[in-house]
């Protein structure tokens, strides 16, 4: 038995990942050894240093086209662009987590998530100001997993990254301070279904390995070209896609989304809706474009059908929702369909705007949805956040600013011009039409019109209805939430009015290595 050779690692190219994982590891130590009084500020600082450091590292690495760790990790334009996006969204989410001004008990997270809901101890904890801060290292690990996910050039690494990002998310979902039962249900549901999806992914991995003899994306590509597609390979690809689509909450693998979005603490929901989607689509793009880009007949019909299903399901079921969080969950499903429209836009020989358009859309959608969920944390009644639609009636009179911001985010989600949502939609639709996917784009446009109805309903409620006498109050956000809202709103506006430079960036980053 020969000695195992350590693979050659390019530490510089891995700097973003090292930053985040380092911060996560330090966070665990702090949780264990630092005194309670200083834990919260220290944890927030570490998480921010990790994510912002990662962002800076991706910026410095811009232009790198490298394969490292014995070919298992690709550090290229799309990986860096999406890692940067995840780092931004992650840093903003950490800020949302650290908000201490809104909940009377100073934090949106419960100290002990495993206590049975409704028990005496649970009721004590609901109002206790004793908070644990494990949420920060957990989130940082998830961010690290997501960033690894977008850079994975190897199906095994992709699977590992999938687990690294998923497991902390399952826990985070169960941490809500209020409505404990719903939160625990969300965590269990997400975990069980997520485990299923992981199994699908693993099975698909095995089949693809059996068909092509490799788990390396570049080798799979070679095998596909030389040997052509076999039934085994197509089956394996299908299973891999199922696993990834689950994370991206694409219909028909979406059924967990509304429940989990509703049950999870809102700041975590914001994080999941924004960052998980970026990571999942990063992996989808890499898998389909790098490994199967030359055999697009294997996935194009599948993605086509999934896109239509997702847009229709998201838009139509969104109409019937009465809870703002659930509504935004269905909106996220519809947006996953729009994103797949961009994924379709791969031209022959790797041309086409699909990659750049999808990456831009991910950034735009992530920031907007983060802002929208961030606003939800402000509207509260005695029982925590007031997310039922009827409670939002007449909000414009209580708080014109919150109502105006929410309207702006909703218009962006609906894709009205001069918001980032429109620029993103335009980019992905253009990419799809370039490759002749007319019917898909027309479906997408009809779905946009349907979805606009439920976004508008919230606007109607806020502006044109009279407030209920016992309606919710609008909390005054502390500095962290204010920063998040300001950044996301500004980004939504700038990416709508002057998107040129970011589009350029996405365009120049849109070259896969490997």
């Amino acid at each position: 038995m020969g000695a195992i050779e350590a693979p050659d690692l390019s530490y510089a190219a891995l700097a973003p990942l090292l930053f985040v994982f380092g911060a996560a590891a330090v966070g665990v130590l702090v949780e264990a050894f630092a005194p309670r009084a200083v834990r919260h500020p220290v944890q927030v600082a570490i998480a921010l240093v990790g994510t912002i450091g990662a962002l800076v590292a991706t910026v410095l690495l811009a232009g790198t086209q490298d394969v490292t760790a014995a070919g298992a990790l690709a550090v290229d334009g799309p990986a860096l662009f999406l890692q940067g996006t995840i780092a931004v969204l992650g840093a903003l989410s950490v800020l949302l987590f650290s908000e201490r001004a809104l909940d009377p008990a100073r934090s949106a997270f419960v100290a002990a998530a495993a206590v049975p809901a409704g028990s005496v101890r649970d009721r004590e904890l609901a109002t206790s100001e004793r908070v644990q801060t494990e949420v920060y290292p957990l989130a940082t690990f998830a961010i690290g997993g997501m960033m690894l996910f977008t850079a994975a050039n190897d199906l095994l690494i992709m699977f590992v990254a999938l687990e690294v990002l998923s497991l902390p998310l399952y826990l985070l979902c169960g941490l809500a301070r209020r409505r404990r039962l719903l939160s625990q249900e969300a965590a269990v549901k997400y975990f069980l279904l997520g485990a299923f999806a992981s199994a699908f992914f693993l099975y698909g991995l095995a089949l693809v390995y059996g068909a092509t003899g490799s788990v390396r994306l570049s080798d799979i590509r070679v095998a596909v070209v030389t040997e052509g597609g076999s039934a085994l390979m197509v089956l394996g690809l299908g299973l891999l896609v199922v696993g990834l689509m689950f994370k991206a909450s694409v219909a028909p693998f979406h059924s967990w989304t509304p429940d989990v979005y509703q049950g999870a603490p809102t700041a975590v929901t914001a994080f999941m809706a924004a960052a998980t989607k970026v990571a999942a689509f990063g992996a989808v793009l890499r898998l389909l474009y790098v490994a199967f880009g030359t055999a697009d007949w294997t996935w194009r019909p599948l993605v086509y059908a999934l896109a239509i299903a997702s847009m229709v399901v998201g838009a139509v079921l969104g109409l019937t929702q009465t809870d703002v969080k659930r509504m935004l969950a269905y909106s996220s499903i519809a947006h996953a369909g729009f994103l797949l429209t961009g994924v379709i836009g791969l031209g022959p020989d790797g041309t086409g705007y699909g990659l750049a358009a999808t990456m831009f859309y991910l950034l735009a959608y992530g920031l907007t949805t983060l802002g929208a969920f961030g606003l939800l944390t402000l509207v509260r009644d005695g029982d925590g956040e007031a997310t039922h639609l009827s409670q939002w009636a007449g909000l414009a009179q209580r708080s014109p600013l919150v109502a105006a911001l929410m309207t702006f985010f909703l218009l962006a989600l609906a894709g009205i011009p001069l918001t980032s949502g429109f620029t993103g939609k335009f980019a992905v639709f253009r990419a799809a039409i370039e490759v002749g996917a007319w019917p898909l784009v027309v479906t997408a446009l009809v779905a946009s019109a349907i979805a606009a109805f439920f976004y508008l309903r919230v606007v109607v409620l806020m502006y044109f209805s009279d407030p209920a006498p016992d309606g919710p109050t609008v909390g005054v956000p502390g500095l962290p939430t204010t920063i998040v809202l300001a950044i996301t709103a500004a980004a939504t506006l700038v990416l709508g009015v002057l998107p040129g430079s970011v589009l350029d960036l996405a365009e120049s980053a849109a070259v896969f290595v490997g």
Partner: protein
Amino acid sequence: MSDVPWLVLMIAVPAVGAAVVAALPPAREALARQLALAVSLLVLLLAVLTTIAFDPGGERFQLTTSVAWIPDFGVEFALGVDGIALSMLLLIGVLVPVVVGASWRDTPVPRPGRPARSMTAFWAWLLLLESLMVGVFAATDVFLFYVFFEAMLVPMYFLIGSFGGPNRQYAAVKFFLYSLLGGLVMLASVIGLYVVSNSQLGEGTFAFDALRQLEIDPNVQKLLFAGFFLAFAIKAPLVPFHTWLPDSGAEAPIGGAVLLVGVLDKVGTFGFLRYCLPLFPDASRDLAPWVLALAVAGIIYAALLAVGQSDMKRLVSYTSIAHFGFIALGIFAFTTEAATGAVLYMVNHGIATGLLFIVVGMVIARGGSRQIRDYGGLAAKAPLLAGVFLLAGLASLALPGTNSFVSEFLVLIGAFPTRPVFTIIATVGIVLAALYVLLMYQRVMHGPPRGVLLVEEDRAEDGDTVRPASGAGGATAVLEAPVRARVLAVRDLSRREIAVVTPLVALILVLGVYPQPLIELISPAVEATMTDIGVDPGGSTPAAPGSTGTGGTD
């Protein structure tokens, strides 16, 4: 003078005005509306100066500005006007100050048990709407046009939804969704155009002048045409797509309704002329009979529905749908006379229907009801109001001597040589127009005094009381001669109201007698459009297919 970026100013001034007004505290309502009036008058001045700077005999698009906006998409912030667009800018310039004046004393819908809402937001939305309306007509980049087209929905949505009648929520959402659906389908066509330009010109562009040069496959043309057409047909509205307008027109505040019907809907017919015909000449020619069928069906159907309306604002909305049928008939008849008539109609309809809406609004402001049956005999007490009402009505039914006559006549004689059957059917609409206008006028203004404006007064001996003359006709209800007489408590037009209606009344009469300057402004642009679709602008017969190199298909 042509160095001044007039069009940019016309967009920027009201936008800045809107921002300033929106920033005012709610208590400074009076300042807000004064500011709104000042800004709208400034825009009118700018519109006039723009017209002076414009040379009717010069190039097709003048006063152009072009700045790269989103280079990745090939989008430019490109503005420029031809005679058609300029006439619409003038219309906007005139109507907005009038609307500000007409809405001067408006108050928001009272909500029981709550303090009245401030009108500041109303003025801010109104100015923002003006800015976007100017943009939509001045854009020469299809993408930019689309952006203005969609963005325009937002202020109108809030005008209807926040300041409208009792059913305003429903109307506002219906308005927004109809327009958005049309807009999104148009977006598909806009992207399609881009893709075609990308394959033909090597790089994608949205510039109108470049897109006009494309040679698009006729089948693709039909698809793209359909996308644009649906958006414009909803906006205009043509008949199967019209159901949002009566709701919006009825529920919108009067000022909003005037701009909605007077200007916003013109974007639809303007779009037919500016985008559908020049960009898709083959498809326009092939599909024209279908469009004409919709137009003529609309003229008759909407007129019949208007006759049956009991709500004055809905009635006026339906008359507009009928008028849009005439405009579409003029556009898709493909003769220079008819198209000139159609453009003239767009301006005249804005003035005449705008006035009709404003007068109806004044009646409603006095009685508080939109129902025709709640009024009667106003003319005796308010002769000026009745006079203006009658004039607006007559202009609506295109009586000779009023502005609408010229345009309707031009449309009909222009369309007859190429489309005799449709034209003959359309003339029935004229008869129906007389019916709905005069019936409304008669019921509201004449007859015995009745309805919501009747109050009991303690002045039985006063000779001023209105007593219906007996034997005046079978239709006259005879009131019991009461001890307490019942009189109409109605004021005639106030000085502000006279100031509001005077410009429109003057325009109706002047343009009715001397429309020549406007025609001279419009006709070069119309001729250029006719050349685009391969119609000889000199004569009224369509050129032989293919003679202009656009590849005829029929």
